[in-house]
């Protein structure tokens, strides 16, 4: 049967420059490049190319170009080439369309429609090069404020202490390589923030960074044991994920190699299936029971976070989670990434985190409990401006997943689920995983945090502040550009010029 699926990219090779060194051949796990056995020249099979740009980066003579496949269907506003290609793919295979990473449609990125303030005349901007800038943030439950407030019982309120309000989001060993864990764990350690194990257990080689680890308990309960719970600084219950709200996860058996299997405590080669719901959480009171079970198991020494995907009634859900005992609420917007997600779910389920955050923060304030819980958001945080805006909208801190992977070399080819990540990130294949030297990965992740730290300090100084907590929930520092009245109202911000 003729396959209707079309190449997405085409390889351009400048033969004047190509010296036939074969780097492209040995680096492409998709076997796009190959040596012609007859004349030893290097050729390419375009249809296999996922556009990861690995060969382009490694070609020592700059002889390669990977460009969009030029041949397109006739223009049509509705039936675009992408739409047609997707249908062809499904009629070829009969399967669900899979993808990696987060929501891909260029819908309004509300972060970009929100602008930050700066001081002029009536108050001075503060020069971060001269004055101390404080980004320290505490996550965890705070005592209710009353005359008998519990400041003197700190042991009842364990806190995570962050030197930058940016943490590395949950990405399990198995979905990413151990070198990714090492890189992020070390960077979190040196920059004094936290990294998240994801639902895949804690590999012995990253145990050294457990003081900065958030251990995740998800519906598959992979890797969970009393020791594992003890090892993290914080326990996160994952209910949902922005890339695939309402559905479970699936790590195919071929990725469950010896190390992954051991860390997850499952037989090698078996599919690691995380069910859609936790089968012991069918209601809010069930969640509460799990939260307190985990707290009991760790003697109330660690904060417990609950992560959900941003969905329509997120405010009410978060209020319930806070009252059910969650110390940290994590909201993952529809742009949140994933190693594997059905394309349709990824692009069409969930809501932007900007609105979810605004709604949740407002709701918790209306109920007077905002100060008692911490709010962490994730899902498409791309840069320090997004971080500043999220904090001004009301978040305590953010998680970055995709941005961290991009720092490690990800080029967003969205083929994570194939396990053929040419950048050594979303793979456990030892041939590929070794491509991410964790020494380099650590440096790159650290550099990203350092750079964002500098930028956050500049934002703060510009707004006349020297402490991040003065930005938190400070929506007066935000103005909306090109947003409707209703959007502005939900975001709780004024329009530019107001």
């Amino acid at each position: 049967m003729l396959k209707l699926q079309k190449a997405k990219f085409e390889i351009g090779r400048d033969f004047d420059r190509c010296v036939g060194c074969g780097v492209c051949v040995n680096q492409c796990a998709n076997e796009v490049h190959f040596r012609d056995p007859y004349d030893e020249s290097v050729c390419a099979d375009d249809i296999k190319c996922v556009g990861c740009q690995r060969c382009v980066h490694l070609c020592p003579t700059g002889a390669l170009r990977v460009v969009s496949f030029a041949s397109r269907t006739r223009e049509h506003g509705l039936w675009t080439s992408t739409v047609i290609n997707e249908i062809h793919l499904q009629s070829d295979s009969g399967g669900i369309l899979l993808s990696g990473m987060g929501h891909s449609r260029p819908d309004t990125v509300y972060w970009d429609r929100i602008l930050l303030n700066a001081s002029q005349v009536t108050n001075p901007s503060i020069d971060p090069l001269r004055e101390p800038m404080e980004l320290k943030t505490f996550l965890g439950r705070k005592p209710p404020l009353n005359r008998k407030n519990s400041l003197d019982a700190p042991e009842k309120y364990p806190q995570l202490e962050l030197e930058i309000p940016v943490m590395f989001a949950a990405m399990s060993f198995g979905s990413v390589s151990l070198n990714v864990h090492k890189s992020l764990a070390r960077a979190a350690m040196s920059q004094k923030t936290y990294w998240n194990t994801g639902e895949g257990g804690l590999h012995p080689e990253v145990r050294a960074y457990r003081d900065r680890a958030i251990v995740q308990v998800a519906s598959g309960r992979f890797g969970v044991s009393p020791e594992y719970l003890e090892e993290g600084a914080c326990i996160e219950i994952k209910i949902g994920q922005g890339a695939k709200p309402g559905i479970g996860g699936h790590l195919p058996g071929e990725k469950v190699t010896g190390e992954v299997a051991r860390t997850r405590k499952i037989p090698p080669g078996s599919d690691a299936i995380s069910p859609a719901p936790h089968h012991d959480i069918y209601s809010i009171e069930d969640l509460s029971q799990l939260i307190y079970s985990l707290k009991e198991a760790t003697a109330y020494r660690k904060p417990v976070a609950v992560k959900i995907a941003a969905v329509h009634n997120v405010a009410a859900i978060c209020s319930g989670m806070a009252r059910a005992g969650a110390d940290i609420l994590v909201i993952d917007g529809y742009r949140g990434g994933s190693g594997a997600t059905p394309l349709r779910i990824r692009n069409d389920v969930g809501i932007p985190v900007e609105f979810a955050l605004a709604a949740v923060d407002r709701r918790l304030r209306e109920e007077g409990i905002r100060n008692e819980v911490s709010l962490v958001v994730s899902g498409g945080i791309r840069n320090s401006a997004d971080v500043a805006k999220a904090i001004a909208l009301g978040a305590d801190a953010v998680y970055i997943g995709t941005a961290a992977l991009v720092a490690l070399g990800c080029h967003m080819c969205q083929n994570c689920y194939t396990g053929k990540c040419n950048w050594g990130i979303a793979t456990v294949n030892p041939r590929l995983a070794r491509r991410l030297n964790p020494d380099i990965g650590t440096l790159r992740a650290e550099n990203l945090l350092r750079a964002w730290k500098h930028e956050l300090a500049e934002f703060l100084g510009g707004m006349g502040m020297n402490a991040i907590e003065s930005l938190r929930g400070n929506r007066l520092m935000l103005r909306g550009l090109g947003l409707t009245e209703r959007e502005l109202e939900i975001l709780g911000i004024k329009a530019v010029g107001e």
Partner: protein
Amino acid sequence: MTAVVRRVEAQDEYCMGCGLCRLACQVAHSAYPLSIVKAMKTGSRPVPRMSVESSADGMSFRSVRCLQCEDPECVKICISGAATRDEETGVVLIDEQKCVGCWSCVIACPEGAIIGPGTGRGKAYKCDLCLEREFPACVAACPNRALILREVEVVESTTREG
């Protein structure tokens, strides 16, 4: 007597078999060290002084190069005096002019680090640590820091002089 000498340390754990080190070595030892394209396309291809081997399953790789032994077998076995060890730098060199291509060093080197028989040049070649460069070309070219230049202190032992 101690001396501080250069060593290229290979972290094979992070060698991804791209072979850019080998290419850089070739170029650095060619007539056109500044242009990969000219180096590789003008005249006969330059000989690399080191190589990268993959494991049989193709899952791991190993940088094969001269370790600049303190008591080098290649120097001991060399019949022509082409192989020498420089006292000051601790670098083992093969003088292309003197080498007669007997391959004695090839059978003596336990690292398999000497290149020659397969090149058709009739001369043995080996890593000279690119002494005239700030970094050996292979180290500079490695995209994954699998090759690291270290300066180590060694206790000098007198071997055959050049």
